């Protein structure tokens, strides 16, 4: 058993190495089909996003190359990119497979690659470090409140002037 296990392990490492070298976490290109994660183990789920189909457009995806059949891509929660998911069959062999999608409106064909690996790469793509989720915009003076305050004081000044004028003219004050 050990004799067969060793070449298999070596193959798995080689595949994983190729996958790591060739595929970023997102198989993204500006006008293609974004495949996420770009590397997946057999049985894993893959999300595809067709930004090229434009806002609100749906698309029909084809993942039959990897044995997952066709899938529908619908606009996500924000009504922007058409997004769909498929599951790589547990029997899929390691390799690179082309996933295609046809935009619903324009009929445009976009493609992206998914790499099937035998070793999960998920453990290697945890985020690192802190997250840049603020610029301090809540800390400075609030320009809206300041402007509203200035406007309110202008109203007060106008009102005061009007009252003083009426009093100077003797209109009842």
């Amino acid at each position, binding site marked *: 058993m050990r004799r067969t296990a060793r070449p298999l392990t070596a193959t798995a490492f080689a595949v994983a190495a190729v996958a790591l070298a060739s595929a970023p976490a997102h198989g993204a290109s500006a006008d293609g089909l974004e495949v996420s994660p770009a590397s997946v183990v057999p049985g894993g789920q893959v999300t595809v996003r067709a930004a090229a189909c434009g806002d609100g457009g749906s698309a029909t995806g084809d993942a039959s190359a990897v044995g997952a059949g066709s899938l529908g891509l619908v606009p*996500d*929660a924000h009504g922007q990119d058409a997004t769909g998911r498929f599951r790589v069959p547990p029997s899929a062999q390691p390799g690179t497979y082309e996933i295609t999608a046809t935009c619903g409106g324009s009929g445009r064909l976009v493609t992206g690659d998914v790499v099937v690996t035998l070793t999960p790469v*998920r453990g290697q793509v945890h985020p690192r*470090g802190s997250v840049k989720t603020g610029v301090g915009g*809540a800390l*400075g003076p609030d320009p809206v409140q300041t402007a509203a*305050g200035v406007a309110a004081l202008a109203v007060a000044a106008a009102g005061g002037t009007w*009252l003083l004028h*009426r009093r100077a003219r003797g209109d009842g004050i």
Partner: protein
Amino acid sequence: MRRFPRFGSGVRDPANAAMAAVTVFALCSGVWLLRNGAETHAPPQPSAAQARAGLGGLAGERPAVPALPPSPPDRIRIPAIRVDAPLTGLGLTNTGSLDVPPAADENLAGWYESGTTPGEPGTAIVAGHVDNADGPAVFYDLGVLARGSTIEVDRRDGGVAVFTVDAVEVYAAKAFPDERVYGAARRPELRVITCGGGWSRGTGYQGNVVVFAHLTGSR
């Protein structure tokens, strides 16, 4: 026919009385707005009481429930701090840190879509801005979230994953505990991350507020 001015009598004139009331109100509200607008509004930071208790402190928490199948999330709700925001997919930056949602939309959070989906076994990660250039954003109040609070995640399969907060911690960016925040977990867990830890003009926020939660229900 000229009337002689008599001090005070004119306030009985309805127009004068209305104008006087408007003037006084505008003066007061103007002063209040200017004072309030000039103050700084730093986001609240978690206290020591919200931090993760020692190893023995997890005994009293709600038991975990069976994990859910993978399904991407669409929305996050944290009723205690009035959060109800859509979720967008996030990747990684060139440096390997978690990317962030577009800052312009103050009510938008994101999830790490190459990782665990909320509800399946492992550590699902959600991040959102504490503020943007215009003021407070979706996770401004994350620092006051109490242990035991509920976080709900709407999933695309139609279900809702319900998480209970275990701890709220603040970490400096220089010594960020990657394994503790992002590391794998056997049960379904959730992290909700925003900026925090003090702010300076030169370097911005010094770190992150991180909420630790685990799955305690679904519907």
